[in-house]
């Protein structure tokens, strides 16, 4: 029962991940080779380090596959506690890099516990929600589920690392999927839309707009008194939200946060200062054209014009050297991977496996969406790596752990228990 069933193993996902990691290595090599006089396989070179991380990941993958199926469910809680302690420990032992205390320094390698916290939180949620007593429709379960994600959110936001925080928020998609009342989702989506619209236009006009819409809807649903009540609540909450967005944006946000939003929204343009990264990234894409400039030949990549290109902006190297075709291929590969995982999650009968698999797809998706959106200048600058692609040991190992556990759980899919 605990044997890995090779026939049932999700080989396409493995191949997809391997391919993405391989492409990631190529592009990391490309971004660092021009200004690194150190041999590529040396540990001084990010490329050399990444090779080591890949090797570790391979070992991790096989280790995970060798574990018994029930192991994950059993150890989810303890892993969660350890993970949260490791986040807490950062405030004592952590190292501050780029303004965030997100790293432990061990043997010359930086280790970022928040990357591992993502799969582990997914495990913890899966365990909690698959319990027979848990019902996401009840306030009690909602409270504990929210608590499970808000603990890491709180610890991470204090580092501060707003990007990773957003990833944890994406668990709401999972809640929604397993039955969280849609009112949460409606508020969630409504808030996001209103947030941007409020920044673009004046709060008064938006409130007026919301009220007019509500009034019309009330008029339309005149017979259904229940909906009227709902609509009044919605419009009231949204109006308050609009006021608070205005307040948050102008009083709580710092100038550089505002700038990032303003640049994406097109309110402000500043290609030398805060918008520099995004602009350089766009130039790299434009420079790539349809077919790209070729491996190691991207002029913007060679000249190191795009900041953080081997980490968060790795996709701009794909865009420049492999062109529209290469970049589209990578996007399709991700889409395939995520769709496949979410579809296999759908077919899971084991609730624990189902929730975890669905979380896997959701975590990958939120990274994919924020990272590529940012690199393409569609989303404000938020430091989030591209799964399997970006340079960095912690995030690669975190994602391999996530996918490995998914593969392990998925291989047991149709067996009865």
């Amino acid at each position, binding site marked *: 029962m605990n044997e890995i069933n090779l026939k049932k193993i999700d080989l396409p996902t493995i191949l997809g991940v391997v391919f993405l990691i391989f492409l990631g290595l190529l592009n990391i090599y490309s971004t660092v080779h021009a200004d690194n006089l150190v041999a590529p396989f040396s540990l001084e070179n990010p490329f050399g380090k990444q090779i080591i991380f890949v090797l570790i990941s391979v070992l991790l993958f096989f280790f995970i596959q060798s574990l018994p199926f029930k192991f994950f469910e059993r150890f989810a809680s303890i892993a969660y506690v350890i993970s949260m302690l490791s986040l807490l420990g950062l405030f004592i032992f952590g190292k501050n890099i780029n303004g965030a205390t997100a790293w432990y320094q061990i043997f010359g390698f930086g280790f970022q516990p928040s990357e591992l916290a993502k799969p582990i939180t997914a495990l913890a949620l899966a365990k909690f929600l698959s319990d027979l007593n848990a019902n996401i429709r009840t306030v009690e379960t909602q409270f504990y589920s929210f608590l499970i994600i808000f603990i890491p959110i709180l610890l991470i936001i204090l580092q501060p690392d707003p990007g990773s925080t957003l990833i944890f928020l994406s668990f709401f998609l999972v809640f929604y999927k397993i039955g969280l009342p849609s009112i949460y989702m409606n508020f969630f989506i409504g808030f996001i839309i209103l947030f941007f619209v409020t920044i673009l236009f004046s709060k008064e006009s938006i409130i007026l707009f919301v009220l007019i819409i509500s009034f019309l809807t009330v008029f339309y649903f005149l017979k259904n008194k229940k909906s009227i009540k709902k609509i009044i609540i919605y419009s009231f909450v949204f109006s308050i939200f609009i006021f608070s967005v205005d307040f948050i944006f102008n009083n709580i946000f710092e100038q550089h946060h505002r700038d990032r939003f303003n640049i994406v929204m097109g309110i402000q343009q500043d290609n030398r200062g805060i918008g520099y990264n995004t602009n350089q990234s766009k130039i790299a894409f*434009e420079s790539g054209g349809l077919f790209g400039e070729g491996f190691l030949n991207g002029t913007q990549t060679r000249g190191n014009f795009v900041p953080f290109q081997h980490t968060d902006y790795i996709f701009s190297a794909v865009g420049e050297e492999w062109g529209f075709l290469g970049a589209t291929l990578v996007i399709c590969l991700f889409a395939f991977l995520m769709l496949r995982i979410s579809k296999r999650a759908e077919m899971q009968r084991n609730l624990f496996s189902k929730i975890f698999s669905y979380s896997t797809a959701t975590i990958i998706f939120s990274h994919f969406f924020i990272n590529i959106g940012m690199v393409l200048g569609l989303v404000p600058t938020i430091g989030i790596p591209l799964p399997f692609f970006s340079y960095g040991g912690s995030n690669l190992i975190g994602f391999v752990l996530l996918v490995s556990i998914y593969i392990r759980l998925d291989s047991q899919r149709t067996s009865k228990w």
Partner: protein
Amino acid sequence: MKDKLLPILIIFSALIFIFRLFWLQVINVDETQFSKKNSIERVYQYPERGYIFDRNNNLLVGNESFYDLMITPKYLKQIDTVEFCNILKIKKSELIDKIKKAKKFSQLKPSVFLSQISKKDFAVIQEKLWKYSGFSITRKSNRKYVINSASNLLGYISEVNDYEVKDNSYYESGELIGRQGLEKSYENKLRGLKGVKYYQKDKFNRVIDSYKNGTLDSIYVQAKDINLGIDINLQTYGDSLMINKFGSIIAIEPSSGEILSLVNAPSFDPNLLIGRSRSKNYLKLKNDSIGKPLFDRGLQGQYPPGSTFKLVNGLIALQEKVINEKTIISCNEGHFYSRKRFMRCHCEIGTKNNLNKAVYNSCNTYFANIYKQTIEKYPDSKIGINNWKKHVESFGFGTYLGYDHPIGQPGLIPGSNYYDQWYPNGGWKAATTISNGIGQGEILTTPIQLANLTAIIANRGWYKTPHFVKNISNDSIDSKFNEKKYTSIDSIHFEKIIKGMFDVVEKGTAQNAKIKGIQVAGKTGTAENFIKINNKRLQLTDHSIFIGFAPKENPKIAIAVFIENGYWGTRWAAPIASLMIEKYLSKEIKRKYLENYIINGNLMEEYKKPYLNTNFKINE
């Protein structure tokens, strides 16, 4: 919905990303993309701008090095600002401003701090420059005008403006372009083609290596030198004759159409329009509203041609067979051209003129009469005048002529449409337009058109499009300049007119144009003219005009001289033309008295008259 949310989000965002990529990488790609790329440095190599010589290989325009002081803000250190400002001859506030501007441009990239420093200033700066880190010198080249003449003709070069950079993919900001004159019309020949080398840079602006192994690089193409048809000795001699007079002299070699000289007065030193004080000088020239030195009178001035135009009417009448050379028309101090209207003439009462005599005496009656007959030969004045117009235009009048200089004016040759506008109910007839017969009225011509007319007569009926450039090194001039263009007048009729023109100088109105040993044929003209000041139409002293060519057989030079407000043709224009012809054909002036008289002649009082705000007399 709940089950489909994640797949929908995945597909939706993937599609948005692909569309965004398509927009960035495929649709939005324009040609300026390449210049936006900060990773590629283009280094241009410019060929030296082509030289301009006159027809005898005298250098007119060469090049001179000048220096730009460059600043790289990153390497600036504490400096002794007082000394620095002193050697650069700038104020301290200016220094601070310029440094600020350079910093705004780039910390690392050098930008121009002070441009076009002369060799003299450069010597001083260079000696002290070692003290000032962050400053460096680059050498550039600019035009050097060897002669102080022909400014409007040669034109000038200046930095391209933003519009040109946008409009023309060749130029980049900071580069020089032929802005006016022959520098403009022969820009492509004179500039050559710049070469370019591409380098790959990194974000610190350091060159890493050549871009794509230099496969896109190109080597510059040498610029071409050009020879003008201008004879610089004749040109500068013309300048000296035109001192203190406004007007223009244009001489053409009839057989080739090459322009031997284009003298404009008042003139200015072409060197005023290069270097650091160019814009200041340009404004000064532009604001001279009386002399208008930037106004090319020879090419742009549209004046009534006066009596010189009688030759054209004579030729047309011969061609239309309304007269022959024996036709006699009598003149009684003028004549009634319609029932109550009288046109005056200086012929005595009872004078009987044939064509020859009418030409050398410049009889108004004769030419008004034959003009009227030419029109009235046709049943309808409209057809008549349009037929006349067609003949006139075959001489190049009413057109830009097509010479190789960017400025010009077409003048005006009125046809039936023109008069229909003035007399919408049709009330005009030949007599209404009678002034055309004697080159007054509505006709306007430019001096170069008159010079071309002279060349046509000298050639007995054809011309080559007048042009300034005689040849281009390793290249040929536009083939249209080698084509003979025939007028609508048969060749045989020209001899009859030329005989009259010869007599103009021998015994007619311009005997002071006679040159010993050279047969000169010519025609004087005196053009009434008016200006509007404060909406008041004022008549000014007549323009003095002369056209002529020599020698009579096998002509070498055809010339038109136009002296604004010089009164009658013989007074200034004829002797000036005659001196020019003598200078060109015998290289040496024997009539020193005439030369001195002309050089010392001063019409400046005449030009000031309309601006004095008092009543003044004309034609004194």
